[in-house]
C-alpha cells in the first residue's frame, strides 16, 4: 500500500513540476517595415478551461472586427502608405498561468505577431507579462481588470495598455450607486433615519481580480466617509461551484445587499444558491464581466432584482449615439456566430480596432513605433461609452477611461430569464431602480 501511495504522490508532484515549467524564450527578428504585407494581431483568449465561455466570446468578437476592417480594404499604413489587411492569430491561454505563458511565447516567437490583444484573468495575464516585457511587444489588455497589470513595478509594463475598466473603477462606481440609490431606497422601505448605516456584504474570488474589487470597495467607503458598513467579507477559490457555506455565513451577518466579485460561472450559482437554498432574499450586485448571455440563462428567475455594473450588455444599450453602433456589432456577431457578444467581447472587438489604428498611425510594424502610437492615440469611441467620447490612454498607467452604468434585472416570464434595464446614472438610465417586493433588508 505504501508503494501505491508513494507512486501517486510522486506522480502528483511530477505533474505539478511539469506544469510549472516555462519555455525558454528567444528574441525574435523584427519584420522589416518595407515588407509589410499584413498586420499580424495576436489574440490571447481562454478558448479552453473554466473561462472558455468568455474567452470564446473575445476571440469571436475579434474576428468580427477583423472582418469589418478587412472588408474596407484593411488599414492604411501612415498618411500615404498602402492599405494592408490584418491577420488574427489566436493563442489559447487554457485559463491557466502556464497556458498563458505558452500562448504568449508561441504568438511572439513562432507566429511573430506585431501586436497583442486580449487577456481575461488577471492572474493568468500577470503570469506572462514578463514575456511581453522581454520581447517588448505592444499589448492591449481587454479583459484582465486588476490595476496591477499596468501598475506593477517589478517588470517593464510600458508596452502594456489597459482597455477595460479596472477593479478600482468597478468598486468605486458600484459603491457610489449603493450610497446614492440603494441606501435611500432601503431607508425609505424601513422608514429608517437617513443616517442608518447600510450593511453591505462582499463575496469575492480570492485572486488579484477579486481582491482588487475588495480593496476598491474598502477604499471608496473609507476615502469618501460613506455611511456603509462591510458586515461580511468572504473569499472563495476561483472556479468554485458550491457557495452554500459562505452564503450561510453571509446571511448570518444580516446584510442589506451583497456585492459579488465573481466570474459568470461563479456569480450565477452564488445568486441561485443564495436565493433558492439559503433564503437570502437580498439585492445582489455583480461586476461587469457577468453581463453575459450565459449568465442570464443560468440565473433564471433568481436573477430578479439583481444589479450588474456594466458598459456593454447583450440585451440593452444606453440611450444616445452609441445605441446604433452597439446594435450593429451585436447583429454582425449574431449573424456570424448565432449568439450575442458579451462585454469582454466588446472590448476585444474595440481592442482590434485600436491595434489596427495604432499600426496605421505608426506606419510600420516596428513595435516601438506601434507602442508610441498607442501612447499618442486619440481615436473616436467605437461601441462603448468613453469619457470625453474618445479612446486614449492615461499618461501614467496607460488606462483608457470608460463611462459605466448600473443595470437592474427584471424577470421576463415569456423568456424564462431576466433582462436588464439601465437604472443609473441619470443621463443613461431608461428606468428607475426599485426594491423587489420579496426583498428583506438586514438588521443589526
Amino acid at each position, binding site marked *: *500500500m505504501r*508503494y*501505491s*501511495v508513494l507512486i501517486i504522490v510522486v*506522480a502528483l508532484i511530477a505533474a505539478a513540476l511539469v506544469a510549472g515549467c516555462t519555455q525558454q524564450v528567444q528574441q525574435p527578428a523584427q519584420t522589416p517595415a518595407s515588407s509589410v504585407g499584413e498586420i499580424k494581431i495576436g489574440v490571447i483568449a481562454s478558448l479552453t478551461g473554466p473561462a472558455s465561455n468568455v474567452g470564446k466570446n473575445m476571440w469571436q468578437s475579434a474576428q468580427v472586427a477583423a472582418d469589418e476592417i478587412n472588408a474596407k480594404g484593411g488599414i492604411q499604413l501612415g498618411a500615404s502608405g498602402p492599405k494592408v489587411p490584418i491577420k488574427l492569430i489566436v493563442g489559447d491561454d487554457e485559463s491557466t498561468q502556464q497556458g498563458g505563458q505558452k500562448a504568449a511565447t508561441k504568438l511572439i516567437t513562432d507566429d511573430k505577431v506585431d501586436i497583442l490583444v486580449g487577456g481575461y484573468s488577471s492572474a493568468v495575464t500577470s503570469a506572462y507579462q514578463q514575456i511581453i516585457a522581454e520581447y517588448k511587444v505592444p499589448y492591449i489588455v481587454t479583459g484582465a481588470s486588476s490595476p496591477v497589470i499596468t501598475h506593477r513595478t517589478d517588470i517593464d509594463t510600458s508596452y502594456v495598455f489597459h482597455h477595460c475598466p479596472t477593479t478600482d473603477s468597478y468598486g468605486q462606481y458600484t459603491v457610489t450607486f449603493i450610497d446614492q440609490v440603494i441606501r435611500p431606497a432601503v431607508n425609505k422601505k424601513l422608514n429608517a433615519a437617513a443616517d442608518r448605516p447600510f450593511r453591505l456584504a462582499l463575496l469575492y474570488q480570492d485572486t488579484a481580480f477579486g481582491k482588487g474589487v475588495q480593496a476598491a470597495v474598502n477604499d471608496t467607503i473609507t476615502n469618501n466617509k460613506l455611511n456603509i458598513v462591510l458586515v461580511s467579507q468572504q473569499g*472563495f477559490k476561483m472556479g468554485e461551484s458550491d457557495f452554500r457555506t*459562505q452564503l450561510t455565513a453571509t446571511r448570518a451577518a444580516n446584510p442589506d445587499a451583497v456585492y459579488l466579485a465573481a466570474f459568470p460561472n461563479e456569480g450565477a450559482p452564488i445568486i441561485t444558491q443564495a436565493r433558492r437554498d439559503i433564503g437570502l432574499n437580498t439585492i445582489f450586485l455583480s461586476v461587469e464581466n457577468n453581463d453575459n448571455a450565459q449568465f442570464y440563462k*443560468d440565473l433564471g428567475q433568481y436573477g430578479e432584482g439583481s444589479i450588474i455594473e456594466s458598459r456593454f450588455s447583450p440585451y440593452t444599450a444606453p440611450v444616445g449615439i452609441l445605441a446604433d453602433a452597439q446594435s450593429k456589432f451585436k447583429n454582425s456577431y449574431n449573424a456570424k456566430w448565432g449568439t450575442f457578444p458579451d462585454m469582454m467581447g466588446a472590448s476585444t472587438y474595440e481592442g482590434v480596432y485600436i491595434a489596427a489604428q495604432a499600426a496605421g498611425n505608426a506606419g510600420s510594424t516596428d513595435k516601438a513605433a506601434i507602442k508610441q502610437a498607442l501612447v499618442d492615440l486619440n481615436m473616436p469611441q467605437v461601441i462603448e461609452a468613453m469619457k470625453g467620447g474618445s479612446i486614449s490612454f492615461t499618461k501614467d498607467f496607460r488606462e483608457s477611461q470608460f463611462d459605466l452604468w448600473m443595470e437592474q434585472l427584471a424577470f421576463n416570464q415569456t423568456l424564462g430569464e431576466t433582462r436588464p434595464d439601465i437604472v443609473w446614472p441619470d443621463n443613461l438610465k431608461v428606468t428607475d431602480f426599485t426594491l423587489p417586493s420579496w426583498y428583506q433588508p438586514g438588521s443589526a
Partner: protein
Amino acid sequence: MVDFGILLQILFWGIYAGCIYILLATGLNLIFGVMKVVNFAHGEFLMIGAYITVTIFVLTGFNPYCIILLSMLALIGIGAVVERLCFRPILGTSKLNEIFLSIGLIYIFQNGAAMIWGDEWQSIRSPYQGITVPVGSFNLPLDYVIIMVVTAAILVALYLFLKKTRTGREMRATSQNRKGAMLVGINVERMDILSFGIGCALAAAAGTLWVVSGQVFNPYMGSIPAVKAFAIIILGGLGSIPGAIIGGLIYGIAENGAAYFLGGVWKDAISFIILIIVLVVRPTGLFGESGE
C-alpha cells in the same frame, strides 16, 4: 459565540458535499480494490454522468432523479469499454503506465465532451427547487434531503451486492487475493470489468446528483473532485469502502467547516492538511491494512 443553528446548517452542507465525494471515492476504491489500478481519469466519469443526465433531461423532460439509473447504466457500459481497451492491456505492468494512461484519458474525455456538448458552463433546475423541509429553525431544501437518501440507498445496494450475491463475494475475493481467487475458479477478468463498470456507475451517480443540486458543470469539472477522491481513499485506506464513506464525510464536513471558520480559500487546503496528518499518524489510512 457561533450560533448552533448556523453550525447545523454548515454540517448539513458538509454532509451534502460528502455524498458526492463518497460516491466518487467508493467507485474509485472499488476499482483499486479489485484491479489495483490507479485511474486519475475517474473524475471524467462524473463529468460524463453529468452530461448524460442533462442530455436525457433536455430530450425527454424526465425527472432528473429517475435519470440517475440510466446514467449509471450508460457509465457501466462506457467503463467496461475503457477497462477492456485501455486498462486490461497494461494490467500488471508499471504503475507509471496506469498513471500516464489515465492522464491521457483525462484529455480525451474532456476534449471529447467539449466537442459533443460544448465547453460552456451549464446548469439545470431540479423539479423540486424551492421546496423545503422545516427542521427546527432551518428549512432544509428538499433536493439535498433527496440527494442524501439516494446516496444512502446506492451504498446500501452496493453493500447488499457485495455481501449477499455470489458475484459480489467473488469480487471481494478477487480484491482480497487475486491469485487465490483465480485458483478457486473465479474469472478475475470478469471481476475487473464488472468492478470498473460499477465504479464508473457510482461516479455517474455522483455526476447526476451534482447537476440536480444546481451546481454548474463543464467538461473540465472532473479534475478537482477526482484529486479529492484520491485523497479520500488514501485517507480512508486504499481498497476500503467503509474508509471511502467515512473519508468522504470527513472531507465534506471539514471543507465546509473550514470555509466558515477560516474562509473559503481554505476549503481545498483543509482536505490535504487532514490527509497529511492522518498519513503521519496512521500511514495505512483510517481503515487500510498494512499488508495490502
